[in-house]
């Protein structure tokens, strides 16, 4: 297969391919973090995760229109404002949904699946009515498109680097939030033993609402970032939902570290196989691989050790 290429060409391609794997890794982590918090920590099967992401994307779209209309001079930096707005909007909607819908279903976790699926259909139809059935094009500042040439042949996409840095920042942020803050301690306490946490004076309702809101907020940021690499339409969220659940379940639902490990495994497997096989085949093999591992290890890669 590689006989006709020179060594330097091959090195360059493998370097770029390695980088493609890393980008895919960051994308998967970014997609899955919000869901890992909601599904893993709260046990809520949030089928509307993709729609929260697309809400973030639409907020980005609106912000970009706003800036190009009223503040064209600041357009280069609008993306950061857009991400903050996306977080805020999805965070608030998440809290609202938790208050109106989810909190009534904590005792019936499987019903959250149906309820949030219904929510996802409602949100899709709202997007369709408000923004139209067609996809919208989000204009990005010029500096975010194109690629940065490392050597003559190795070029790295700038938006890829952007996603990687963003993922890193958010992951570190969540680490501190979950494992170094008082709120994180409360969340973990509620996850491990809800009645006991309540008994020692933790306001479990408030913790739930905030957790759900933050999970949705991170989905919003992810959606905002994905306007760089994907489409923004009423049903675009559906493109992400399967992969997202795959990553979270494979990693072991309750472990954030597991989510990251699983994203890494899946992304490397997929991008390597995509390179040597065709795209559809790579996907099939990746899924088979994940199914195989889950058969051997139903709890996922990393399981939380708690006394029940």
């Amino acid at each position, binding site marked *: 297969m590689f006989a006709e290429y020179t060594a330097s060409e091959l090195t360059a391609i493998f370097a770029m391919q390695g980088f493609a794997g890393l980008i895919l890794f960051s994308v998967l982590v970014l997609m899955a973090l919000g869901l890992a918090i909601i599904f893993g920590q709260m046990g809520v099967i949030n089928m509307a995760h993709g729609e929260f992401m697309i809400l973030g994307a639409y907020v980005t779209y609106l912000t970009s229109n706003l800036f190009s209309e009223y503040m064209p001079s600041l357009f280069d930096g609008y993306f950061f404002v857009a991400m903050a707005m996306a977080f805020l909007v999805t965070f608030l909607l998440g809290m609202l949904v938790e208050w109106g819908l989810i909190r009534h279903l904590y005792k019936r976790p499987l019903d959250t699946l149906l309820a949030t699926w219904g929510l996802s259909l409602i949100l899709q139809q709202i997007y369709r009515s408000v923004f139209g059935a067609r996809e919208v*094009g989000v204009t990005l500042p010029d500096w975010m498109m194109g690629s940065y040439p490392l050597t003559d042949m190795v070029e790295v996409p700038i938006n890829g680097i952007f996603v990687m840095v963003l993922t890193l920042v958010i992951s570190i942020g969540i680490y501190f939030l979950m494992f170094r803050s008082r709120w994180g301690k409360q969340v973990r306490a509620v996850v491990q033993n809800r009645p006991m946490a309540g008994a020692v004076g933790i306001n479990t309702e408030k913790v739930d609402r905030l957790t759900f809101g933050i999970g949705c907020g991170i989905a919003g940021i992810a959606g905002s970032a994905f306007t760089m690499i994907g489409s923004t339409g009423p049903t675009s969220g559906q493109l992400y939902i399967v992969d997202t659940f795959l990553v979270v379940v494979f990693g072991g639902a309750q472990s954030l570290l597991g989510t990251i490990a699983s994203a890494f495994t899946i992304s490397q497997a997929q991008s390597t196989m995509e390179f040597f096989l065709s795209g559809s085949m790579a996907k099939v093999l990746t899924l088979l691989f994940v199914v195989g591992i889950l058969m051997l290890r139903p709890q996922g890669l990393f399981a939380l050790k708690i006394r029940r």
Partner: protein
Amino acid sequence: MMKKAPPKATRDDSQASRRGLLKMLAALPASLMLASQISWAAPATSEVNTSGLAVTDDTVTVGILHSITGTMAISETGSVQAEKLAIEQINATGGVLGRQIEYIQEDGASDWPTFAEKSKKLLVNDKVAAVFGCWTSASRKAVLPVFEQYNGMLYYPTFYEGLEQSPNVIYTGQEATQQIIAGIDWVVKEKGAKSFYLLGSDYIWPRTSNKIARKHIEKLGLKVVGEEYYPLGHTQFNSVINKIKLRKPDVIYAIVVGGSNVAFYKQLKAAGIDLTKEKPLLLTISVTEDEILGIGGENIDGAYAAMKYFQSLDNPNNEAFVKAFKERWGDDIVIGDVTQAAYLGPWLWKAAVEKAGSFDIDKVRAASPGIELTTAPEGYVRIHENHHLWSKTRVGLAQPDGQYKVVYESEDLIEPNPFPEGYQ
């Protein structure tokens, strides 16, 4: 004659009052005429409708069947708008055989069994005289048995993979060979292309199309250096872009559809492949002006597309069409290949009905081959014996503003050939 316009036709119609006025003006002299003269203007219902269709003395009912909800709503909205516009224009110029067209619109909801169910409803309950609809091949395949069983007439607008010819369908879009062969001949002749990388979404249309493309490329003695497919909705194309960089084809032949399209072109640009440099050159048959809205003109600038219609076509028919379309549906709307093909449906049906002198499906079918339209936005078209259209193929160069610049037009009409020999 002066009876009030039925509610259906005026449902979402901002032109209702204007049409009402037109009708009154038209009715004024008519009401002065003798009864015999009126029946000369509009032949008696018993003559033009012997098979129990929904035809009255002054109306005829047709069906519109597209997805207005679900994934496919993105693509099908334009077709619905085009069909409504054509029907309104036909009504404003006197209707068909003296009858105003009313439509019943059903939603296929991007779900193929729903398409089948709704088409049965239109044919059996509503007894519509024709149906304009469907978009994906899957939805067409789902309604086909219904149309054949209940003998309906479907006008199908999308370019598709061919390998089908039903007496109950008129295909107003191009079948694969019309679109593909002319496009490939053009890049080979004009751009000196020698090697191709075939890429597509993983379902019947891209796969069949690439099969035809590969056969044709190999027949010309040129090389296919890669061929692969990604699942519908795939959003990560970095690996394939690396492979393209490694194999260095002259042409990337891309048939990626839906949301994947946006991801593919954005990532292509981000990976440093500048399409305007034409090294490699990109030729697609799946990106119309509609899709560019989502992709963003700046991300696809420099790509070539081979299809039969572009909004920028420079001819008087198209000028009038674009103007009317924008007046009806808003200034910022774009018109893609399929939208134009959908617009042809009602006009072709009207021509066939008038030639047959009857709404009966069998007579309309018999009259259809040879029907020609000189007023089509894409230029002259004619229905072939095989129910597809003779049409020209054009190559457009994508511009940053989201429009195509037409750089090539086939000299003659290309014969539709849904069952190409040696290409299957």
